[in-house]
């Protein structure tokens, strides 16, 4: 079975380590991620102003394309894309006047009414595959790996687009348990990483990162598990700065949830692109005997 899939911009460059392991894993699970043949940037942030319709054109246009190719569900991997597409979809469902204006402006010959269901890959794993079946497919259980699930903001807020309980989310923890890892609950798992403030006040990013890392490590986590490329950038940069400033601060590996999925399903670590990660995840995996040896590729001689 194929699932219509929207990647978003960053997954094709800096966050290939989020996308490529997801595509390979879903193929192994028999639910192929079928990238939309044509898509545009969703705009990253959902515009919050009542009169701002122009910034809703980008996400709605993507949804119309999904509808036109006959799919009823759209899967995303990036938490920002999920949030923007899902909020734009709710607007198209619930506000007849704005819906008509947007449909007229976009002029794709279709009166879109929010019919597409926007979901995150974690929801597909939870609701369409199920933790029990996923656990049965695990070839390399991630035993002895104490991982802190970090949700950030956009998977859980606002309530109407949350993929889980915004106050007490468990989806990432259950996912990690299915892979054989030990999830570590920590109180800062839904605290903001600073988001787009990295553009306005980059120095503040360190202060956003500090309580998140302090809390995760004091609860015994060895690494953080993420779903969002902006969290990855901010936390990676934040902890690098903290290590420079604060003697004794130890950087922590940051994983995308899809890398752990691919690893646990027994796929080649090549698809995980650990070289793009922050905080040396490979050393931790090697220490736990969780990094299968891969024959190195010989360069072709001339």
């Amino acid at each position: 079975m194929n699932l219509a899939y929207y990647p978003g911009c960053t997954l094709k460059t800096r966050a290939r380590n989020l996308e490529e392991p997801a595509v390979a894993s879903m193929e192994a699970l028999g639910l192929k991620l079928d990238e939309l043949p044509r898509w545009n940037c969703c705009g990253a942030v959902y515009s919050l102003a009542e009169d701002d319709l122009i910034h809703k054109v980008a996400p709605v246009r993507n949804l119309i394309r999904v509808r036109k190719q006959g799919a009823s569900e759209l899967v995303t991997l990036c938490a920002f894309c999920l949030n923007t597409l899902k909020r734009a979809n709710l607007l198209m469902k619930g506000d007849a006047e704005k819906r008509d204006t947007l449909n007229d402006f976009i002029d794709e010959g279709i009166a879109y009414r929010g019919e597409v269901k926007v979901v995150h890959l974690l929801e597909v794993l939870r609701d369409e595959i199920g933790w029990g079946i996923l656990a049965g497919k695990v070839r390399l259980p991630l035993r002895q790996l104490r991982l802190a699930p970090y949700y950030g903001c956009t998977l859980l807020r606002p309530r109407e687009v949350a993929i889980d309980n915004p106050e007490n989310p468990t989806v990432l923890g259950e996912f990690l348990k299915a892979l054989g890892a030990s999830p570590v609950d920590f109180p800062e798992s839904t605290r903001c990483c600073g988001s787009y403030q990295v553009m306005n006040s980059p120095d503040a990013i360190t202060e956003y990162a500090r309580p998140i890392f302090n809390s995760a490590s004091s609860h015994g986590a060895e690494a953080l598990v993420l779903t969002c490329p902006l969290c990855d950038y901010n936390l990676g940069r934040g902890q690098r700065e903290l290590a420079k400033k604060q003697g004794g601060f130890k950087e922590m590996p940051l994983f995308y949830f899809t890398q752990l999925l691919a690893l646990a399903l027994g796929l080649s670590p090549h698809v995980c692109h650990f070289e793009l990660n922050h905080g040396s995840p490979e050393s931790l995996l090697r220490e736990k005997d969780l990094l299968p040896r891969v024959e190195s590729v010989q360069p072709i001689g001339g």
Partner: protein
Amino acid sequence: MTKKASVTVSHRRLGREFVRKVKELSGQNLQLCYQCGMCTGNCPAAVNMDVSPRRIIELARLGLEEEIAGSKTVWVCASCLACTVNCPRGFDLSKVMEAIRLLALRKNVDRVRPEDVAPEQRCDLPQIAMVSGLRKFTG
């Protein structure tokens, strides 16, 4: 001794037009707020703000535009919506913050100019940071 109020309210200073615009852009009923401070208590950025999120609502509904314009609070807000999901009144402060930002940005004054971002930063920042930051800080 009672602390003296730091804001003087008089009919001459009340910006009714400002209140109207904030309501229109945010779609929020500013009178819903009963100043409990849950927004400030849950805000991860409050420590970097000169005027607390709770107080922004009070200043906005009084129409005290100058006090708001002189504060950096709305530019420090990361739209994380911790205030929104924790408000016992169902008030969406993130929309009020956005409305105030837009009232400034629509005067054609950008908060961040792409050309001011250092070249090494521009190469380092992922698209998601550039797009979201420029969406929030330019008009």
